[in-house]
């Protein structure tokens, strides 16, 4: 019997995803938990220059970055960098797990089963090792592509043209860095789009899940890419804010840098909720049609 083609309605799927988590707010709990952990870490970093955390962190910051950055207001210059570094283990150990929990919750709701957050966590925890390895592999891919882009920037800096096509290329590569990093994130999320649903819902191990992920992705790569890209576009205003944070902090107050990070965390909650709900719904649709 020929397999039915899954209808690819981008806007419908995205609208459906938003409707789903607004009518079933339990889906948002894992993403809110991720945000909570991130804000928790941010708070710790905010208080790093003060007693008692200063006793532990000041020698480290002094050695790595200099005396200046353990004093007000220069500590806020380094805080976004510290938070960025903290994001790496946070994603690999924590966020990926809760994304998988959210996917399991969506699948349970789709099946008409009653689900609670803690029971979903317990259920998904059995797959933690596979989720961890999956997150590690996707992070390595992101990091590798980020490094390749870094090499492109180095090459672009060597361009001496002040007009013409090479100058345009140079300007785009150098000034477009935050946007290209966003696109790299979209690409990596797309490439591994179905790994977490396969682990959380089908209880696959990591390497079979990666293999099946590419099988599912075949024929629908660009659809999934646009599905991930569209909600991510809402992060562009945050990028604009972050790009101008130096001037904003100077004109207003140094703590503005922390506020921008909090805004980025909140925006990311809704982007991630939309993206992963949409991906999971698409996966479940494909499963029903196959």
């Amino acid at each position, binding site marked *: 019997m020929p397999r039915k083609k899954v209808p690819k309605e981008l806007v419908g799927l995205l609208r459906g995803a938003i409707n789903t988590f607004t009518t079933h*707010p339990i889906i948002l*709990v894992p993403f809110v938990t991720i945000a*909570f952990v991130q804000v928790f870490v941010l*708070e710790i970093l905010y*208080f790093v*220059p003060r*007693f*008692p955390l*200063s006793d532990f962190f000041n020698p480290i910051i002094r050695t790595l970055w200099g005396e200046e950055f353990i004093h*007000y207001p220069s500590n806020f210059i380094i805080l976004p960098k510290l938070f960025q570094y903290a994001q790496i283990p946070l994603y690999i150990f924590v966020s990926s797990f809760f994304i998988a929990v959210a996917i399991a919750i969506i699948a349970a709701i789709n099946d008409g089963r009653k689900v609670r957050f803690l029971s979903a966590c317990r259920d998904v925890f059995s797959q933690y090792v596979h989720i961890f390895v999956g997150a590690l592999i996707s992070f390595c891919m992101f990091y590798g592509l980020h490094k390749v882009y870094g090499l492109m920037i180095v090459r672009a800096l060597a361009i001496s043209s002040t007009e013409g096509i090479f100058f345009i290329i140079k300007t785009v590569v150098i000034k477009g860095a935050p946007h290209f990093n966003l696109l790299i994130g979209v690409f990596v999320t797309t490439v591994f789009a179905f790994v977490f649903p396969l682990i959380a819902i089908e209880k696959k191990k990591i390497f079979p899940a990666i293999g099946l992920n590419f099988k599912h992705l075949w024929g629908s790569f660009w659809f999934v890419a646009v599905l991930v890209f569209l909600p991510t576009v809402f992060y562009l205003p945050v990028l604009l804010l972050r790009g101008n944070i130096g001037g904003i902090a100077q004109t207003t107050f140094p703590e503005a840098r922390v506020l921008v990070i909090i805004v980025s965390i909140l925006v990311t909650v809704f982007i991630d909720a939309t993206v992963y709900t949409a991906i999971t719904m698409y996966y479940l649709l494909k499963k029903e049609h196959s």
Partner: protein
Amino acid sequence: MKKALVIYLSILVGLFAVLFVLGHKGDYTVERKAWKLYQKHIDIAKDPVVIPDRTFEDVIAEYEKIISQHPDSRLTPGLHIRLGEVYALKKDYAQARKIFNDIIKLHPENQELSAEAMFKIGQTHEFERNWVEANKVYNVIIREYSKTDTAMRVPIYIANYYRNENDFQRTMEAYEVAVRYYKKMASDHDNTRVGLNATRYLSNCYLEQNRWAEAVETLGVVIEKYVDSGYLTIENADMTIKTINIVSAYQLQDYDIAIKLYQGIIDRNPGHRLNGYLEKVIDAFHQLRGKGVEASDLK
């Protein structure tokens, strides 16, 4: 969802409250308050004439509040200096001098702080156009706080005062006094931070008097003697080398002066930390020559 939000918010607020309470008496809190107040201080200093008295009083009251709330903080003596500066901006020089004198009485063991407070006293006399009294104070700093950074900058400060007053003879005399003073300090405190500061100020004296050859020679001593001492930062070493290059090229119009200086350092100190960099600078000069760009062509 609501339950989760309430729990998470409670934890975050609780953590914030605990960490805030634990750290609120520390130096960071003083830094934060002082920095915010210092922004107002800077605004006043831009044009104190147009600032209403009420603003001065508010800033003074805030400084006094921080000092009374954190009397034992290591930053409090510095806040006293700032308080005195605000009185000086308000033209209440007597009160400013009283505060600076109190600092000296309260912290006699802190030579650098006492020297700075004395310097501020001298400046209040200057603002009152009483140079005689100011000069007396500055000479006391040189005598009694000779090893401090403040005392080190006083001789050249005095020379610059006469230069700004367009008193050519006194300017030259002051520079001669400064040169003798810095030479003595450099020799008496060789290979110490004081010796480094004295040598750098000596080079500044020569530069300000357009004594280019002596300036380059003195800067060469800084590079040769003090790079490995731990007192000269990489940024300052870089700036020193750039100054030598610029003076040699543009003022003396002779690349060979810098080339010979660097080559001499390399020959006398085979293991010198900057030898690799100095060789690159020598190469760069040779390349300029190779391209036909002579020092005499530079303007």
